[in-house]
């Protein structure tokens, strides 16, 4: 276990010096500063930052993690020639990658948001952003161990991003119209859980009081997401979105020929 964290520490300190990570953090910081300064209403700025959280975080997290995995291939081989287990090496790479992306998020978006908001909304923003980064990193690692060559891996990851960010909502829209004669509360709740990006968006939307627009259903959702239980639910599902791809990739990686 200590070997794993030692390894994680060294890989982490490598990744945070990476140009892409520095640029990623810088971009977020710039966007946050610009929005909070130009937009007189901080709520509106937060909404724009939410778009960054929902689009940029998954995209960068997934692509960066995939590329990082392929670029580390020889190093991983070298490590595995040492008396280290495959799980240790894989998890070290995963945690180092996810934690540096999270660090970039906290420094870039998290701190400016915390300077303007100190409520549950800000906490929810940080929590979901962090968990979403973890989930996207896990999904990317899963795609990377599945596909042997880099181009294919990046292709899969881009498709997955496109699916979660756009296609999935189209499917939701179709489902909601197809079954509009039935009570849809539970179904809608379930549908949000099946997409980490949607879940993040909805948990933020309902905290921003959009629920009133939804009539009584919205009140139901708000009661759910707005409560502590709702935060546990959101956090729990996002955690599952990290855990399940991670378990799957560990199973593949354990018996993979390198």
């Amino acid at each position, binding site marked *: 276990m200590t070997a794993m964290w030692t390894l994680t520490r060294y890989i982490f300190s490598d990744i945070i010096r990476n140009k892409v990570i520095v640029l990623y953090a810088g971009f977020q910081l710039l966007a946050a500063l610009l929005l909070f300064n130009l937009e007189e209403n901080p*709520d509106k700025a937060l909404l724009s930052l939410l778009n960054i959280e929902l689009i940029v975080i998954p995209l960068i997290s997934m692509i960066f993690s995939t590329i990082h995995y392929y670029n580390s291939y020889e190093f991983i081989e070298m490590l595995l020639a040492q008396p280290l287990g495959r799980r240790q090496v894989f998890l070290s790479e995963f945690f180092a990658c996810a934690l540096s992306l999270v660090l970039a998020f906290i420094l870039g978006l998290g701190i400016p948001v915390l300077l303007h908001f100190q409520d549950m909304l800000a906490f929810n923003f940080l929590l979901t952003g962090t968990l979403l980064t973890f989930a996207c990193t896990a999904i990317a690692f899963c795609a990377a161990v599945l596909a042997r060559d880099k181009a294919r891996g990046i292709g899969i990851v881009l498709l997955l991003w496109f699916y979660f960010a*756009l296609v999935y909502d189209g499917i939701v829209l179709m489902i909601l*119209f197809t079954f509009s004669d039935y009570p849809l509360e539970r179904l809608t709740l379930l549908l949000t859980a099946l997409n980490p990006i*949607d879940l993040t968006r909805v948990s933020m939307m309902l905290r921003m009081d*959009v629920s*009133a627009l939804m009539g009584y259903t*919205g009140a139901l959702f708000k009661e759910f997401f707005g409560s502590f239980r709702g935060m546990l639910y959101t956090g729990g599902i996002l955690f599952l979105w990290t855990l399940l791809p991670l378990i799957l990739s560990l199973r593949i990686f354990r018996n993979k020929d390198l």
Partner: protein
Amino acid sequence: MQNAAKSLFILALLATSFPLSAVQLIVGGAHGHATIAGALQLAAAGDTVIVMGGTYREGKLLIDKPLTLIGIDRPLLDGENARDILTLSGKNITVMGFRFENSGISAMNDLAAIKCIDITGVHIEDNQIARSHFAIHLANASDIVVRNNTIEGVPRSEHNTGNGIHLWKCKNALIEENDISGHRDGIYFEFVSDSRIRCNTSRGNLRYGLHFMFSNDDRYEGNRFIENGAGVAVMYSRKVTMEQNEFLHNWGNAAYGLLLKDITDSYIGQNYFVHNTVGIFMEGSSRMQILWNSFSKNGWAMRVQASCNDNRISLNNFSGNTFDIATNGTLVLNEFDRNYWDKYDGYDRTRDGMGDVPYRPVSMYSMVVERNPFTLILLRSILISFLDKAEKAIPSITPELLIDKQPLMKPVRV
């Protein structure tokens, strides 16, 4: 100290300004009458009854002749949760400077702190009314002034809480600078004409801040309606002027800043609608002028049902609303022109302050939400912004005629 000085001043004023024939009767204090009821009994028309500070529990008080009833050092009239406290009837009655508490609560009778029945010329000013069923209840009255009263109810449920200032079948009323909270409706108008409601604050009432029915030729202006259950409702009326009011934070399911139902020939100008679920909800209303209003941070700035026609919505500012306009039909018979829309992204090459391409205030998504409210779960997703952009380029499901042909490039200064 200040109160004592104020009381002396009022006493001096009364002593000099009333005609000699009028008599002053004093209740309470070292030498005054023991009870208000006793003094009222003795007083003749035109007299002034002055009540000194203290607590009075005298059962039902009735004034049925022209009298001025003045409280010094804010005497408390306690209804002991049992009855109407003060009933006025007849003509030319003034009540000022009292505190009323604990009128009875009854589901059968409209028990009130001050009840006015069949009266002409009533002046209720500078009173505090707390924990009453109805605070001021006027029925079949005319020439009314209700000014500068502070009314604080205990919000229970809608059906066992009365209204703050309640007018039924009245004429020529001025309701001014009152502060009303915690009642069912803050101010209630039914069959009231030629009246004005000015500069009141109606806050945290269970149902409406102002409830307005079957009342024509009235005007309300400069009022603030804040955090009421469902906002302000104006229904079944003609020729109402609504000016310079603020409709704030009426947020919740089925809440709105202003509900218009079957209103005609009225004017809505220079009002602020901020952070309401719906800024203005319009149904069956026509020939309205809606000008120089500001709508910001509302869920929907306006919901204009298809049953509305010949309304003119012009020179308003729309900014930071989730949806600007929603409608439930495709046929639109209302005119939108020269409003400022913050979502407008056109250009002004002619430099006349108006965009060169028209603005469509109804987004595709708002039409989708209209048909299936569950789709609100997709709010702010990329898909929705793509769909809205696509619809803007090639309109297909948004109402063709609902456009602002001359959207303003900069907000209107109100």
